[in-house]
């Protein structure tokens, strides 16, 4: 068992029994479910919208080379500097170079999961730069030196009391139990940071190939300030973010808002196509866009699972996942958690090290059903399991299946097996769940279904 599996199992066992944690997550998600259902029901046809969204992302991903060439050509034509990074290391080096060249003193950041993926903050801080996360949830987890708990709701696991204590300790503010006051404390603390920052770093939700623009979706206005005030702005994004046309946003923006947070439209949806243009009164003098591969092309090469790159990171599959709800976002130990994280992490970071995430599933299919771009999530969990075994067969499983096939193909042996099992079952309670129990993995926390007294076969013979 590798360290990732051990960590996952320990944390999952602990958190699944932590009723306080579960209550907190359930309360937060209940608010989400209510809002999402209301907004979804307003659509004339959510299903047609999903299908179209799936087709548009399919088109984008399956013409990715062309989309990327168009996207970057348009951006460069208007003065943006485009960088390509094959690995996380290259991406960090590119950002560090820009930051050093600009002799930056402070850096303000808006939400970017790709920056978590490449551990950018650590690298910048290690090199002596101050980086401040400006999204409220991200700011809170940054002050706690934690990773985001959820890709859309980073601080979902914390109560206002915990946040108040944190602010008291880190910012010297007075304790309060009002979310409004807490938000205002953060607002005041961050205002001066925006104004002082020489560099702004943002993520992106979409990259429009047709017009060479990136699109950022947010509620707070922190990304807008991050892209408005600093002299240099850097946008990090994965190469899979592309959409072919500007007007595709008319579908994707409302769907992202509804699936992600139960909103009609997120408060700020902003498109950026370059640095400050002639005739404009503000905006950065320099605009950099960094395209990150970091094994996305590995996932792209798997045609069967390629649609996992359609993901718009709405977080809906996390919100409905019974595993996520019980074990929580940090337990995964990955940048991307929940069903989509379980599907893609093996591609991004190694199948054998991360295959266990695909086992942690009830295969209920709630994720597939809720996904706004119709990614076949729960089937991909099965694909990962299959691929893991193909790549690294387990000898005793193989042997067990050969034995099983041998027995079930011989009615006499099967009959004997049944009879033995019925007898064995009488004694099973003596060892149930103990280390002697061969079915321990199952029976530790569950009952074994009882074998019927008579099989269908036997009943058939009697009654014929």
């Amino acid at each position, binding site marked *: 068992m590798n360290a990732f599996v051990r960590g996952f199992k320990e944390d999952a066992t602990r958190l699944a029994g932590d009723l306080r944690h579960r209550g907190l997550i359930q309360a937060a998600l209940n608010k989400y479910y209510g809002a999402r259902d209301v907004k979804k029901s307003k659509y004339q046809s959510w299903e047609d919208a999903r299908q179209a969204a799936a*087709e548009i992302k399919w088109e984008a991903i399956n013409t990715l080379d062309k989309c990327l060439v168009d996207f970057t050509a348009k951006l460069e034509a208007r003065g943006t500097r485009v960088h390509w990074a094959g690995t996380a290391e290259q991406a960090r080096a590119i950002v560090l170079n820009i930051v050093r060249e600009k002799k930056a003193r402070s850096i303000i950041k808006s939400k970017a999961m790709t920056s978590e993926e490449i551990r950018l903050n650590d690298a910048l801080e290690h090199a002596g730069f101050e980086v401040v996360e400006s999204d409220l949830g991200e700011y*809170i987890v940054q002050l706690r030196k934690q990773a985001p708990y959820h890709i859309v*709701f980073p601080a979902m696991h914390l109560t206002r009391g915990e946040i108040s204590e944190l602010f008291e300790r880190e910012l010297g503010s007075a304790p309060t139990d009002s979310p409004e006051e807490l*938000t205002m404390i953060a607002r005041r603390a961050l205002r001066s940071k925006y104004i002082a920052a020489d560099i702004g770093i943002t993520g992106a939700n979409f990259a429009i190939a047709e017009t060479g623009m990136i699109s950022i979706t947010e509620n707070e206005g922190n990304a807008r*300030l991050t892209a408005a005030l600093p002299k240099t702005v850097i946008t990090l994004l994965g190469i899979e973010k592309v959409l072919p046309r500007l007007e595709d946003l*008319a579908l994707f923006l409302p769907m992202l808002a509804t699936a992600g947070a139960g909103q009609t439209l997120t408060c700020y949806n902003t498109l950026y196509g370059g640095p400050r243009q002639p005739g404009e009164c*503000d905006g950065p003098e320099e605009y950099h866009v960094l395209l990150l591969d970091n094994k996305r092309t590995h996932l792209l090469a798997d045609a069967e699972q390629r649609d996992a790159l359609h993901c718009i990171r709405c977080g809906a599959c996390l919100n409905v996942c019974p595993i996520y709800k019980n074990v929580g976002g940090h337990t995964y130990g990955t940048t991307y958690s929940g069903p989509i994280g379980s599907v893609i992490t093996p591609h991004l970071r190694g199948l054998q090290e991360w295959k266990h995430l695909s086992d942690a599933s009830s295969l209920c299919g709630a994720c597939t059903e809720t996904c706004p771009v119709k990614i076949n999530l729960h089937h991909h969990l099965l694909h990962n399991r299959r691929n893991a075994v193909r790549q690294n067969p387990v000898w005793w499983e193989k042997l067990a299946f050969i034995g099983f096939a041998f027995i079930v193909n011989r009615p006499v042996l099967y009959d004997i097996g049944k009879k033995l099992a019925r007898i064995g079952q009488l004694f099973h309670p003596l060892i149930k769940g103990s280390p002697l129990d061969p079915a321990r993995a199952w029976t530790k926390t569950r009952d074994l279904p009882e074998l019927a007294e008579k099989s269908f076969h036997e009943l058939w013979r009697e009654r014929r």
Partner: protein
Amino acid sequence: MSEREAILGRVREALRIPAPLPGHGERKGSREFSRWLPPVGDSLEAFRAASAELRTDFRLVDSPEAALAELRAAEGWKKIATHRGELTTPACASLGLPVLTVDSGYDVQDLEACDAGVTECDALVAQTGTVVLTSRQAGGRALSVLPPHHVVLARRAQLLPDLPAAFALLKERYGANYPSMIALITGPSRTGDIERILVLGAHGPKKLTIFCL
């Protein structure tokens, strides 16, 4: 080989094997977004309803001067910021307050100290209660997001039914040369990051007022 060529090479190599069709195996090719998104009905009513839900203060007015004067009195504005525009310039000048006009550059601290930012817009979207504006026509990137109150002066004719119409307009108006920023603003700044409880004014304006002529 540059990193660009290396990545594009890997992409092309990967795409040589075709992927199964999207959405669990079918392809309809239909793009009638307006028929699937939430229905709009009467645009003005829809915009009003969306604004109420978002806590945007939306009002039809006869005179932007009078409407602004009322706000100024209610909130005790001392200084405001705006950009040069057919509607904004006369309306802001009529208040008799110090007005920071951002068009030819401004000091960020100065803008931060303003009580309100007054802008025009490109369109209003009834379906979602959204204001569409750009860095070229509405005073850059910060004016509509840095001051605590964003006031939009719009005309009734700018009201569009839905998002597809808004993107069509942007393409028609700017297709040859887009501004560096296009913003869709839907209500005052908000967050739910603390226990999913809604708080207005997270980083952007706490208030959004739209005066529609």
